[in-house]
């Protein structure tokens, strides 16, 4: 590798480690959260350095953007941190075994990596690509070879939404005291762009970096921005329509999976001549549903049907 690249990587990773430490141990909670958001942004750059653009897209919008919005919203709802007596010396002493553990772990990791059989599953995936129905290896793994994992993952998200909704009504923070005309104006300009790029990423997922996860993340980012600018879930969307939107991805996924069982004899076995179209259906349904579910996670509770949620 070129020395410049090595230097860049070293700087990037060093800042990530420092920010991670700040994000956990900063004196002020707000500073911790902001450090963590910056850590997320740098992580997205690290994914680019690791030649993983799909993950970088998802990380930039989820790890830095949406997680940050969630954390800041939570911070606003919590009171100030009640500090116990500070025990600096004890903390430093307790660091030592961890440091030792980290060093040992790193050495073991290095040894393991160097002794691993090199190719991993890359060759196997490449060999199976002609039958996958899409050109992008990551999308093929997500929605064809290991579609089962993705199904369960969407199930986990749905469970998270259900868990949050069963905790109570939505707890959106009240609007700020000073009117901010710039934000709604910005959202009016940007929201169509968010929708456009969501569908662009969905379409692109078939042959390049993109697909359901980054697209859903982007859609969620747009919706959360609209929520922050003062938009609320429309009255007629609450209740059944919203629930269908939240559960739709899993539902479409299951229908395609069971259909595969009926047509080709196994759960998630796509008939090869229809694989592309089936994957496209699943991808669009999953992407939109992931977007809505992420927004629902941000809402923090079910929007009430009759009256507005507490603000």
């Amino acid at each position, binding site marked *: 590798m070129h020395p410049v690249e090595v230097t860049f990587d070293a700087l990037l990773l060093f800042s990530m480690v420092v920010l991670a430490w700040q994000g956990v141990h900063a004196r002020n909670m707000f500073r911790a959260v902001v450090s963590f958001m910056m850590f997320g942004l740098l992580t997205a750059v690290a994914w680019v350095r690791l030649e993983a653009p799909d993950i970088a897209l998802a990380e930039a919008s989820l790890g830095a953007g949406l997680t940050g919005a969630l954390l800041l919203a939570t911070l606003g709802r919590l009171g100030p941190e009640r500090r116990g007596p500070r025990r600096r010396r004890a903390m430093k002493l307790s660091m030592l075994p961890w440091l030792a553990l980290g060093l040992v772990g790193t050495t073991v990791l290095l040894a393991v990596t160097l002794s691993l059989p090199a190719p991993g599953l890359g060759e196997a995936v490449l060999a199976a690509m002609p039958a996958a129905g899409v050109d992008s290896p990551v999308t093929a793994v997500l929605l064809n070879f290991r579609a089962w994992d993705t199904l369960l993952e969407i199930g986990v998200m749905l469970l998270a939404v259900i868990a949050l909704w069963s905790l109570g009504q939505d707890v959106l923070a009240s609007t700020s*005291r000073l009117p*901010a005309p*710039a*934000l709604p104006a910005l959202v009016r300009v940007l929201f169509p762009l968010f929708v456009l790029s969501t569908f662009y990423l969905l379409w692109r997922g078939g042959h390049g970096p993109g697909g359901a996860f980054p697209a859903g993340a982007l859609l969620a980012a747009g919706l959360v921005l609209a929520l922050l600018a003062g938009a609320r879930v429309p009255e007629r969307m609450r209740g059944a329509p919203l629930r269908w939107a939240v559960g739709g991805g899993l539902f479409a996924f299951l229908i395609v999976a069971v259909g595969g069982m009926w047509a080709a004899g196994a759960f998630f076995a796509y008939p090869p001549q229809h694989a592309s179209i089936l994957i496209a259906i699943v991808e669009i349904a999953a992407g939109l549903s992931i977007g809505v579910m992420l927004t629902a996670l941000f809402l923090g509770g079910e929007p009430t049907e009759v009256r507005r949620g507490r603000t």
Partner: protein
Amino acid sequence: MIMMAGTVLIVLGLLFFLSGTVGLLRFPDVFTRLHALSKADTLALGLVCAGLALHADDGALQLKLLLIWLLVIVSGATCSSLIARAALAHGIRPWQR
């Protein structure tokens, strides 16, 4: 020649980034810091994007760079205004000599 001009633009942009960062570190309160950051960084990003566009040989790529710059202008201005409003709402008075 065009490559050369692109490199010059990028270096110029980096200088503006540097000055914005110096302002962020040296200025006394949140409003003056915003003043330094928002202007210097927007111009710096514009210069870097222009330089990269000169290096790029693809029309679509140049359009994307332009789009990036426009989006950052819009969102950066909005963010600065929001931060300033939040600071005012928290009772931070602008710094006076």
